[in-house]
């Protein structure tokens, strides 16, 4: 006999009340789930709303990255300098020659836009030490980030999107955004004042966000890093590329890689007390200690059609033990938004047209 069977039968109203209570509990549980998923909060900056904002900004381009859409895969290697080992216990700084799969790209979500000297250029690197933890980083050729928060990232994207009615950027929206974001106004001044190089090869790319390096004794230091071109800097000359092909920046890079490898110094800038790790719109003082951690060599280029960079999400939070994220909120914003972009474009692979920059197959040679 089950114990409950001996109890008095419930009256009909009691049954109804209890049924209702169960119904309320189940509805509340379902509603809580929907709430946590962001579906009840139109103002929450979810990953999907970032995707919608990118689509509104640049249009839909199935199969491409939602930002830095126009790019080219490269391969090469990293040779650590002895100076890096005392700073970080990450395997890449303690091994001989670590393979790299990288990507050069132009900022923006339009994969077929014509190259322009002023467009922000990026270098993404994936360090793949054999048998040890990998490291991914995406760097840009600007001195500071234009925004310092998740909210700034989203609002700037929305404010700079073309007005659907006119097809032109809404100047009022941008003015309104800048009025509320003085950090962006200051950062834009630094970004505009940068010297623009002639191409990808003589450019310098910066992590912008801060991280921590931790060595084998457990000592951590805040850092930002840069890939500083070994190739001598040549200032952009508008006359030299007037009427140039629409892929002239990438074509130049391809041409240089046909004849010789290109090199960058990986430089760690060590932050000191008072240097913000949280605010990527603020530059650190020029006199900070810089440590050359090694040389990045890029030896060949491969189109996105055949390249190993295409299906890689250069998530700035993919870090080896020995490199850790800082309290910069942009790291979580970039990581989560890139992840969503990667998921969407991976599902769209079959719909992706060929990338704008597709070097001849002969470029996809075997390893050096």
């Amino acid at each position, binding site marked *: 006999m*089950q*114990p*409950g*069977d*001996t*109890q008095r039968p*419930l009256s009909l109203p009691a*049954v109804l009340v*209890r*049924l209702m*209570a*169960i119904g309320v*509990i*189940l509805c509340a*549980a*379902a509603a*809580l*789930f929907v709430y*946590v*998923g*962001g579906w009840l909060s139109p103002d*929450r*900056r*979810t*990953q*999907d709303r*970032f995707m919608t904002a990118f689509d509104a900004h640049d249009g839909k381009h199935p199969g491409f990255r939602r930002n830095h859409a126009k790019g080219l895969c490269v391969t090469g290697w990293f040779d650590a300098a002895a100076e890096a080992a005392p700073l970080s216990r990450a395997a890449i700084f303690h091994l001989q020659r670590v393979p790299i799969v990288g990507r050069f790209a132009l900022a923006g979500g339009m994969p077929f836009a014509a190259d322009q000297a002023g467009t922000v250029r990026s270098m993404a690197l994936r360090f793949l030490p054999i048998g040890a*933890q*990998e490291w991914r980083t995406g760097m840009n050729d600007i001195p500071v980030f234009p925004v310092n928060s*998740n909210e700034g990232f*989203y609002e700037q994207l929305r404010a700079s999107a073309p007005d659907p009615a006119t097809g032109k950027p809404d100047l009022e929206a941008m003015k309104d955004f800048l009025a509320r974001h003085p950090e962006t106004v200051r950062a834009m001044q630094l970004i505009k004042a940068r010297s623009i190089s002639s191409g990808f090869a003589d450019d310098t790319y910066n992590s912008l966000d801060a991280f921590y390096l931790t060595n084998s004794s457990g000592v951590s230091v805040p850092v930002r890093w840069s890939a500083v071109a070994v190739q001598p800097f040549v200032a952009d000359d508008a006359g030299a590329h007037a009427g140039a092909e629409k892929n002239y920046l990438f074509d130049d890079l391809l041409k240089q890689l046909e004849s010789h490898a290109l090199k960058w110094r990986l430089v760690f800038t060590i932050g000191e007390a008072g240097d913000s790790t949280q605010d990527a719109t603020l530059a650190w003082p020029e006199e900070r200690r810089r440590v050359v951690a090694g040389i990045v060599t890029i030896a060949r280029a491969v189109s996105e059609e055949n390249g190993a960079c*295409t*299906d890689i*999400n250069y*998530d700035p*939070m*993919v870090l080896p*033990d020995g490199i850790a*994220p800082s309290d910069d*909120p942009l*790291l*979580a*914003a970039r*990581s*989560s*938004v890139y992840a*969503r972009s*990667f*998921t969407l474009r*991976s*599902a769209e*692979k*079959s719909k992706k047209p060929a990338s704008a920059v597709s070097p001849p197959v002969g470029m996809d040679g075997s390893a050096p």
Partner: protein
Amino acid sequence: MSKQDERFTALSRVLHWLMAAMILIMLFVGVGMVSSTTERYRYLVALHRPLGILILILAVVRLTNRLLNAPPPLPASLPKLQQIAATVSHIVLYALMFIMPLLGWAMLSAAPYPIDLFGTLRLPAILSPDAALYAQLRALHTDFALLFYAVILVHLGAALLHAWIRRDGVFRSMAGGPRSPTP
């Protein structure tokens, strides 16, 4: 039937309630993290991966325990259709305890993302890199998560029906409490 058979064993009950809490936390962390872009995203992802693997390990323990210790039978008074529904829903819940973590592990492998647990502990990849496959597994991970939560709600609703309306001892067999009804 004997008094001993009326309830799940202590180990079964501990596993049930521990995993119930972990799986609910997991589903909420999951749905929260895939919609987050703030600092919260970092902490939720860092929790989601090790918790998922822990659930997978406990699922192995639990299935073994279930095969070794038969659960108390449902009351004979329960209509056949409800008996079948109970059995099917339990099979689905057990299956999802294995499928969800394995899907998560597989999709991260295909992406390819490193599968960090805690400290320097990382899991090896169980699939070769394949972005299109990643996208399919990623979609399945969401679909099965929604199914998991839906079946949990059905399970909860059924448990409460047993507890508050049928009062047939089925709820008490898992909830614990006194063995004999207080008059």
